[in-house]
């Protein structure tokens, strides 16, 4: 793409906005003040406008900073794993995939993950490397989980859900924390978060963290043992916000992260992975007479090296996004959001054969939230994406497509609609529909890589996966338990599911296996959650999730699967999470239990068309944290994960090990 033109256009828009904001008010979201005012979690992740989570027309959850602090987890994916409808597959020490509403797999491509609205999933394939996200747990204000497709608001990848990580505001919040952690697997970790301000006109928050830990030493197929990599993470992030006018703020962010771990690939095999990521971002936020306007320009750079027994792969990916949105209110009952977005996503393959596959996406979206009366509100959102694919440079001889055939054009429509009925100020019912679009990734559509004697080839004619979701939800506070009830039932159908390495194409140059759409899959499910408090000291939470999937995939031949995609048998049907917390004086005790029913999960120790189903028995696992406040500044915490057994099988990857960690943290 022409980066120079994009930057120029962005600068012009930013300048125009800055000039149009005289005599108006406020800017970035003040989550803290709004939550204190309404006494309830506040979100912008549901439909792009600030609202109480209970008023949102989608099923969602908010994990607070206090819940993060009291969890047994030491990383982002661990924080998510006790939530209803969220499945975390921990593949190795340091690598996990997270799915909302089932369909988890190595390199899950159905989840959109954001940090303050900036995408942090990796856009060459649409997967998430959770420890590559340049955030320390101590700087997170809340994590918002939106369940179900939401691409009409956020764009591609938000097909099964959205995880928006909201950090403290550098201009409004003071956060100064440091911690050191040691534990089993030779775990050593340090973390620092600091903030400072200049005359209330400039706020800065800097965070840094590093972790080293051994890989799990559980039985691993011989062919994969050489790929096992110890876990190492280094992360640095700067977030700043400047009050450049009474009603306008300028945000500048930068981050870098280096993570080595043993990944579980979409081919269902282990591989050593080295992720090097950098990002830069500039935002202008202004409360104008035309509404709350935000201009956002950012770029994410990825340098990924993957090593398997048959494949050495280097991926250089850069995505640049420019987004302009306006949120405004018409009259007393119509909240509106209009947005435009340009995205350039490029994947170089120079480490392999040369050439670049890229696409440009132009998007236009609109959201209309109509507060009909005290009892009803209706929200509708549409988004149109126009994707233009392009490939330049040399190609591998066995690839069955000419470069000109990669000049594909894709026009997609995403829809979200939700009716909220609040009949009595207490009960809330939601009826919602979402049509999510999972666009082909650059790997799906045009990557080329030699894997032993075979060439893996992207397919420029592959269709996007479409996910239609229908949902009914009910929630209410429950005074008798001093808590809340939340329920949801849903039906979801995914059509044109994509897979890499599917269709063999023989030529005199060799064998290429091409990405294809492989069929559809339906899911029906439900979740129910109760939480409550007993007296001043006790709190508890209990949730159950049902996910039942029926695949119609062109996959099975005899005892093996030809494609590393299978959801019906690999998604556990029943999951139960329970947690119990007790806090008194300087002590905090938290216990987390989890039951996951049995499943048969796809496995392939080497990248090949011969995949098998690995039985994974139902299991119960427990985690815990005990915290003791030594002084006003220092806290000592003992955390244990999967503590009931020395090692246990939770996925088709090698067994996980018990982890016990001791953390000394300081708030200054």
């Amino acid at each position, binding site marked *: 793409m022409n980066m120079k033109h994009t930057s120029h256009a962005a600068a012009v828009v930013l300048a125009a906005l800055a000039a149009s904001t005289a005599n108006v*008010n*406020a800017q970035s979201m003040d989550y803290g*003040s709004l939550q*204190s005012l309404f006494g309830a979690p506040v979100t912008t992740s549901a439909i792009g406008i600030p609202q109480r989570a209970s008023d949102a027309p989608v099923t969602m959850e908010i994990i607070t900073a206090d819940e993060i602090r009291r969890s047994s987890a030491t990383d982002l994916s661990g924080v998510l794993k006790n939530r209803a409808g969220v499945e975390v597959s921990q593949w190795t020490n340091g690598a996990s995939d997270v799915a909302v509403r089932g369909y988890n797999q190595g390199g899950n491509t159905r989840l959109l993950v954001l940090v303050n609205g900036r995408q942090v999933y990796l856009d060459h394939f649409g997967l998430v490397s959770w420890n590559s996200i340049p955030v320390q747990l101590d700087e997170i204000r809340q994590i918002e989980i939106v369940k179900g497709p939401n691409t009409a608001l956020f764009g591609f990848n938000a097909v099964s859900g959205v995880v928006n990580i909201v950090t403290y505001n550098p201009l409004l919040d003071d956060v100064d924390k440091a911690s050191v952690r040691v534990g089993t697997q030779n775990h050593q970790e340090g973390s620092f978060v600091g903030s400072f301000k200049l005359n209330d006109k400039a706020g800065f928050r800097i965070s840094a963290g590093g972790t080293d830990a051994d890989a799990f030493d559980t039985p691993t197929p011989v062919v994969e043992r050489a790929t096992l990599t110890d876990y190492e993470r280094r992360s640095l992030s700067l977030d700043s916000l400047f009050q450049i006018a009474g009603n306008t703020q300028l945000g500048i962010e930068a981050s870098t992260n280096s993570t080595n771990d043993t990944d579980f690939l979409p081919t269902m095999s282990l591989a050593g992975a080295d992720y090097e990521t950098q990002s830069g971002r500039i935002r202008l936020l202004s409360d104008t007479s035309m509404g709350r306007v935000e201009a956002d320009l950012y770029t994410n750079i990825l340098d990924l090296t993957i090593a398997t027994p048959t494949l050495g792969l280097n991926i250089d990916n850069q995505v640049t996004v420019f987004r302009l949105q306006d949120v405004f209110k018409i009259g007393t009952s119509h909240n509106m959001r209009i947005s435009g977005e340009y995205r350039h996503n490029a994947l170089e393959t120079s480490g392999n054969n040369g050439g670049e596959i890229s696409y440009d996406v132009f998007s236009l979206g609109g959201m209309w939230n109509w507060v009909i009366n005290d009892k009803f509100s209706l929200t509708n959102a549409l988004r149109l994406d126009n994707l233009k694919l392009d490939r330049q440079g040399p190609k591998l001889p066995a690839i069955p497509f000419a470069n000109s055939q990669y000049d594909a054009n894709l026009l997609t429509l995403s829809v979200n609609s939700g009716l909220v009925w609040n009949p009595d100020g207490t009960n809330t019912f939601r009826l919602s529909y979402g049509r999510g679009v999972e666009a082909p990734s650059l790997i799906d559509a045009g990557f080329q890589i030699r894997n032993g004697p075979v060439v893996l080839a992207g397919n420029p004619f592959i269709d996007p996966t479409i996910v239609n979701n229908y949902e009914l939800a009910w929630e209410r506070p*429950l005074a008798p338990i001093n808590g809340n*009830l939340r329920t949801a039932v849903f039906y979801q159908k995914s059509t044109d599911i994509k897979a890499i390495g599917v269709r063999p194409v023989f030529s005199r140059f060799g064998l290429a296996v091409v990405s294809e759409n492989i069929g559809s899959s339906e899911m029906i499910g439900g979740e*129910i959650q109760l939480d409550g408090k007993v007296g001043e000291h006790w709190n508890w939470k209990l949730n159950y999730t049902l996910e039942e999937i029926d695949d119609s995939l062109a996959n099975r031949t005899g005892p093996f699967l030809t494609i590393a995609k299978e959801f019906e048998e690999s998604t556990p049907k029943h999951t139960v999470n329970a947690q119990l917390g007790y806090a008194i004086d300087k002590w905090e005790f938290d216990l987390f239990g989890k039951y996951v029913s049995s499943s048969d999960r796809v496995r392939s120790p080497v990248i090949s068309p011969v995949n098998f189903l690995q039985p994974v028995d139902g299991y119960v696992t427990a985690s815990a944290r005990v915290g003791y406040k030594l002084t006003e500044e220092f806290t000592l915490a003992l955390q244990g994960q999967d503590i009931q057994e020395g090692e246990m099988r939770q996925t088709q990857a090698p067994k996980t090990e018990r982890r016990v960690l001791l953390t000394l943290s300081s708030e200054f």
Partner: protein
Amino acid sequence: MKLRTGLLIRTISLLVLVLTGMNLATPARAQVTEKDFQVMARALGFMTNGPKGTVDVAIVHAPDNPASMAEAQAAQAALGEGLKAGALTLRPVMVSADDLGKLAGVGAIFVAPGTDAQQDAILAAAKTSGTITMTTDRKCVEAGKCVMFVATAPKVEILVNKATEAAMNISFDSAFKMMVKEI
């Protein structure tokens, strides 16, 4: 499709029956509380060019109306020597609806219920100084005599009269306005 829809529907239906059968009645509204004023103070923090620091709040009441007097006294007790919430500290100043000259210099006005006959005069006085009027009497906002109504049970509810707000040249942060009800 071989999905167990029957089981799911039966389970959900049972839960609905059990839970909707529980005694979960909403409590009747009581007099103004400390919590109501905490919400008012935090709401004032979202005003453009709103009051800062320690704010004198006029508690305007009708002295010959026992209900109004009781509400005013409850408000005075709730604010005590000064109630801190967010960046503001609210301090009570008792003002009779018959003596609105005492409104000069206050940062906000709390209009106690039972002042219906004086609300036109209170609004006029508030307009003169551009001082926001707040109440726990919904009718005052619905009639356009007060800017903001606040309730805190069963959950926080804020109602803003847009026309009155504009007439008094008062404005709020747009995020705040999207989260409250406007008429």
